[in-house]
């Protein structure tokens, strides 16, 4: 009976460990990639807007060589502030479900003005058509560089779904953790100090698993060379992944330390009780 009771306690401790682990992972993701404020702070921290601004200029230059126009026509058609404002529109569309479009009218006007000035207004009807296509291409290029996707609404729907599941999961996990702790208390009523050991075991398991996961991912994935879309996006993504792994390491170390401390405390209490019991056994004979 005692062995069965012990096994049940360890099983409950394992379930508790898994529940805590899930809660930690959910918290790590909720506070990083799933948080709009966090993503915006990362964009600022990694100078994302400056890099995208440079990218837009470089992408425009790709078209100028075949256009027969002077490179000067691209001067000042986009401002850094506009890049920042438009990037925030996209982030808002994704996280808040807005449907705001990037306005390229200003770019169109400035580019047309620069082209007119460059050609001194001497533009034939055929050239006008070709220039209009060129201007449209530049505007589309700008939109593509800023947004990278036409699926903002789909991403938002997915994001909302994830958010809903996470909130549900959080509630379920918290209830699960409560139930596990109550069960452990009930199973260790006669030796209540064992609760410390079981919770200690759960924390130790979580600590080891998180540290293992962090080391495993670090050894398998070349985070420093992940490249997606452009330099700006890649650096933000790398930074977010490093933050996530850093948090996994932090939580892992803290949980492992607390787990070991709890187990040592349990060992101490058990020892004290044993010595006390031994003393009590010898007392009547004395």
């Amino acid at each position: 009976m005692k062995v069965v009771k012990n096994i049940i306690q360890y099983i409950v401790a394992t379930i508790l460990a898994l529940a805590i682990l899930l809660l930690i992972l959910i918290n790590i993701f909720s506070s990083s990639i799933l948080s709009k404020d966090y993503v915006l702070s990362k964009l600022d921290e990694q100078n994302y807007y400056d890099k995208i601004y440079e990218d837009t200029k470089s992408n425009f230059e790709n078209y100028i060589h075949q256009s027969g126009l002077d490179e000067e026509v691209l001067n000042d058609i986009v401002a850094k502030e506009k890049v920042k404002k438009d990037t925030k529109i996209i982030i808002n569309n994704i996280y808040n479900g807005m449907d705001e479009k990037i306005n390229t009218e200003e770019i169109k006007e400035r580019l047309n003005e620069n082209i007119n000035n460059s050609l001194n207004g001497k533009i034939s009807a055929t050239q006008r058509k070709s220039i209009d296509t060129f201007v449209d291409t530049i505007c589309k290029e700008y939109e593509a560089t800023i947004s990278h996707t036409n699926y903002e609404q789909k991403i938002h729907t997915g994001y909302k779904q994830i958010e809903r599941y996470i909130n549900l999961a959080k509630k379920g996990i918290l209830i699960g953790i409560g139930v596990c702790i109550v069960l452990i208390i009930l199973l260790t009523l006669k030796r209540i100090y064992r609760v410390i050991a079981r919770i200690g075991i759960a924390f130790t398991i979580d600590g080891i698993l998180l540290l293992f996961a962090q080391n495993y991912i670090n050894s398998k994935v070349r985070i420093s060379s992940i490249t997606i879309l452009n330099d700006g996006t890649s650096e933000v993504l790398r930074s977010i992944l490093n933050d996530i792994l850093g948090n996994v390491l932090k939580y892992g170390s803290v949980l492992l330390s607390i787990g070991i401390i709890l187990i040592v405390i349990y060992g101490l209490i058990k020892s004290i009780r044993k010595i006390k019991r031994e003393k009590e056994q010898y007392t009547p004979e004395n």
Partner: protein
Amino acid sequence: MHNFVINTIKATIIELIVALFITAIILGLGYFLFGAKVEETMSLINKVSIGVSEGKEAVDPVMNEENKIINYPEYGNKYGTIKIPKIDIDLPVYYGDALDILKKGVGHSSGSYFPGEGGSIIYMGHNSKKVFRRFSELQIGNKIQVTTSYGEFNYKIYDMQLINETEVDKLPIQKEKEILMVYTCYPFNNIGYATQRYVVYAELES
């Protein structure tokens, strides 16, 4: 006191062993259930990781006796030069056709063969003054010379065609005969966005 320490260590170690044992079971079970998927995900992430060649110098391609290139150049790297004496062209050739590559010189379509391999080779360049603006002066019989680290290849122009921008992907790729196709935007003195391409076809002489 001695007994107290021994008992404490014993109780602690037993609980730690249990914790390790349970962790091992969880990891084993996790690997059994999700191991393959995790590995697959990791390799997928690594596929979007570059940088393997970062810091390394570009290695020149080498061709073996069976006319097979042993080490192809990496995307974006220069691997040769193209000379068209008739229009004073002497430009570097890069492997790849991205717009940022074309800023530097002539691009080589990554879906086509390399000089000397015996198939269709597709090169492209802007119609700017420094690149192919003077393509209109080319005539049948003019020479094109491509020099790579593994040899020099001479081609003779046998045809010129005007195609739409969208037809570039349909340029014939075959391996029966070595043909060099070089194209640029048309009209040559275009202002704005060019929707046509001028293609020069040349066959291998030596």
